[in-house]
């Protein structure tokens, strides 16, 4: 079974509630470490402007490049739910290695500022998952723009779109995410 995410890009107001809730739940200090990132996409020229937001965490790929890239086997894909997790005890640390980050198309591997910081990233809130709860980002989203669950169920509920503004789908990695995309179609709006 493969767990995955659904992201409704048409609803996301870019409010960062998911990202802050993630930091609170997982005790991530403020600063450069972001398990969940929110990107603003702006296109067009005044007054014909397009804006969308893209949320990116770890997409727990079917074929995770980070797992194969890690020289010491610190990253693994869980059999039972396909969640990709890192063992920080094994990780060599960023002063020695950043192969996982190089391999990932979505900047999921994150590092703290401390010396030889070990890799950390979205773990699908496996602690909450064990209690039958949604990941904290899903529970937090004021717009209900996020959902999570078995990927096949998400696909039958929301469709199979792998397309979203700002997102590049990798057929090779096969990220476990489906979208309701907000695609930029010029001209973007404005007067009349």
């Amino acid at each position, binding site marked *: 079974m493969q767990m995955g995410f659904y992201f409704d890009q048409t609803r996301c*107001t870019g409010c960062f509630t998911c990202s802050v809730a993630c930091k609170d739940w997982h005790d991530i200090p403020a600063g450069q470490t972001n398990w969940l990132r929110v990107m603003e996409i702006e296109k067009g020229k005044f007054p014909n402007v397009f804006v969308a937001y893209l949320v990116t965490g770890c997409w727990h790929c079917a074929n995770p490049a980070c797992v194969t890239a890690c020289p010491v086997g610190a990253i693994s894909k869980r059999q039972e739910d396909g969640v990709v997790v890192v063992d920080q005890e094994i990780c060599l640390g960023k002063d020695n290695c950043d192969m996982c980050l190089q391999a990932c198309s979505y900047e999921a591997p994150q590092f703290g500022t401390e010396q030889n910081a070990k890799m950390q990233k979205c773990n699908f809130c496996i602690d909450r998952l064990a209690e039958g709860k949604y990941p904290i980002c899903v529970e937090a989203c004021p717009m209900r723009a996020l959902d999570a669950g078995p990927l096949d169920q998400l696909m039958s509920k929301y469709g199979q779109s792998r397309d979203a503004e700002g997102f590049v789908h990798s057929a090779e990695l096969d990220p476990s995410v489906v979208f309701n995309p907000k695609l930029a179609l010029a001209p973007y709006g404005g007067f*009349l």
Partner: protein
Amino acid sequence: MGLAPKERAMTMDSGVEGISKGKAEVIRAGCSYDCGGLCPLIVHVKDGSVIRVEGAASEGTPYRACLRGRANRQRLYHPDRLKYPMRRVGERGEGKFERISWDEALDSVASELRRVKETYGNSAIVFFGLGGSHGTLHGLGAGIRLLNMFDGCIHLWGNVSNQGAIFGSFATYGSMLTGNTRDDLLNSHLIIMWGWNPADTIWDSGTSFTLAKAKEAGIKVICVDPRFTNSAAIFANQWIPIKPGTDTAMLIAMAYTIITEKLQDQEFLDNYTTGFEQYREYVMGVEDGVPKAPRWAEAITGVPAATIENLARQYATAKPAALIAGWGPGRADYGEQYHRAAMVLAAMTGNIGIHGGNTPGWEGAFPNYMTMGGLARGTRGLIGTGRKYRVPGYHIGSTTRIHCCEIWDAILKGKAGGYPTDLKLAYVMAANPLSSLPNTNRGVEALKKLEFIVVHEVFMSATARFADILLPANTFMEREDVSAAWLGAPYFVYSNKCVDSLYESKSDLEVCTELASRLGIEHYNDKTDEEWLREFLPGNIPDFDEFKRKGVHTVDLDEPFVAFKKQIEDPENNPFPTPSGKIEIYSKLLADMNHPEIPPVPKYIEGGESHNSPLAKKYPLQIISSHFRRRVHSQLDNVGWLKDAERHALWINSIDAQARGINDGDQVRVFNDRGGTIVPCWVTERIMPGVVHVPEGGPFDPDEDGIDTGGCANVLTATGYTPGGAFPGNTVLVQVQKL
């Protein structure tokens, strides 16, 4: 055993270490900030420390806290919390303090209050209480009650947020309570978000989600705003950019189109309103020879005449249609005219008191006793008058009051300058007026002139730096309180105490209770907090204990609440609370004020700082300052998790940036004759050329030359207000220069 408070704070802020997670006690609480949401929260507490903040959605409530609610732990345990009472040792404003005991601090405040009262009288004391806490029990109400029982003080009138909306609501409908519950938007055929950006400003938990659902249901949403806000970007099908301060002209031109094309709901006008004919004469130019045609408005607003006509036709024919007139455009020169013009347009289209419509105005939907400062109620009768232009219905008794937008001037000039009193002592509670009120540099001068300043604060705010005695206040998770959603949402929040007060901090009520005993005031606080809270409960919450346990009470409604529904369905028995009993398009009350800038029908009056003013040669850009999603006014600005979310920056269009050699991220100086501030730039197409925007509430942090380096918008705004009380903070001219 839990860690000692100091150690705890340090480990919690560093985040990764700290107390191990796992099973924790969950406590129901709720945000207490001035964003309107007052969202319920589930706080995880272990060994006496907050370890996580979860939303209440997991328990099935529809209200989901935003990033601010989620970041509360980093505010609670912020290393910069004020930890003990302090006395100023350096020059005032220099920020140099020494630690003193609570007894010394309270004795000192009590003795200064006594001295000033005996020497100058109560009118030398001014109370600054703003939106720092939206609890009913804690926050400014404690101070108002204390000073009332001390025989009174000078209060501020007017509020920087929405005084124009309040004025217009009373003049037109006789009531501030013009709002519907948000779910009624789903009954609309058209939603016009006029200067309204709930994606960032919240306006009751669930407002944004309702707008998303409305758009998904195929309801057309149009946004009129100088900025392509997040609300415009996500909810709107169309964005109409407009020059700040000109909204009234566009609304009046829409009325022109509606009248010319006979699209008005004449039956509604005949049955429920008075004075349409006088307004028609103004609009058509019968009165002054100037027809307020869309072409007239195009030259003023920058919006093409055809766009104005099109919007007017849609609004008049898409019944029911909801025109929501946000408060931002009302924070402008003659902002009250903008609100009045929107109200009249809603009446002309018959969109008041019906499902799917909206009554533009102050927008409050639920009167209740659980409101900010509720503790002050029931205190002894007050004396005097303050409002220059009193509109019946809005009556908060008070001693003499001074408009918040000229308080700095009043302190500096006193009676000699025509103000009613000479002020000597400022009591500041749940407020950071240097940041929140206009003309910060004038505020600095004013605060230096006073004889004594006492401030209750959580952090070393701009205003706190000017205190003579600085008292550490606690935060909502350290005390028990109840609150009500700000405006349209039918829910109430019980915020349980989660942890003991950190360090030596106390609640405002605890401080004032101790001062009351030092001042010989009896019966200031004869109740426990719980007894007070029970007293505040409105009748529709029958079970206090259940409310406390659940943390949120949602009012069951058979259908969405709609303001003035009774007045429309059964006008015989339910007149509007105005002198005529009708919606007053023409207000005799306003006419009787006989003030050239308070016309009896809404009119466009050009303000002093428009693109047309001579000053625009020197300062060619208009600046607006709106609410920022990662803080509430100046509160929460120092929270790291929130800083990660979005940079505090000046929005500037690429055309204006290019003309000044500015690239994205460059530091710039924004300035006018009142002051300057240094802030990084965000070059974006999301703002119209000729207009720049900096979020309000940036920290005021002056360098050696007095230039603010924190991006505080109010160093640029002017002292004064327009006659209906509006704060003209969004009609300000500046220049921007690359550093």
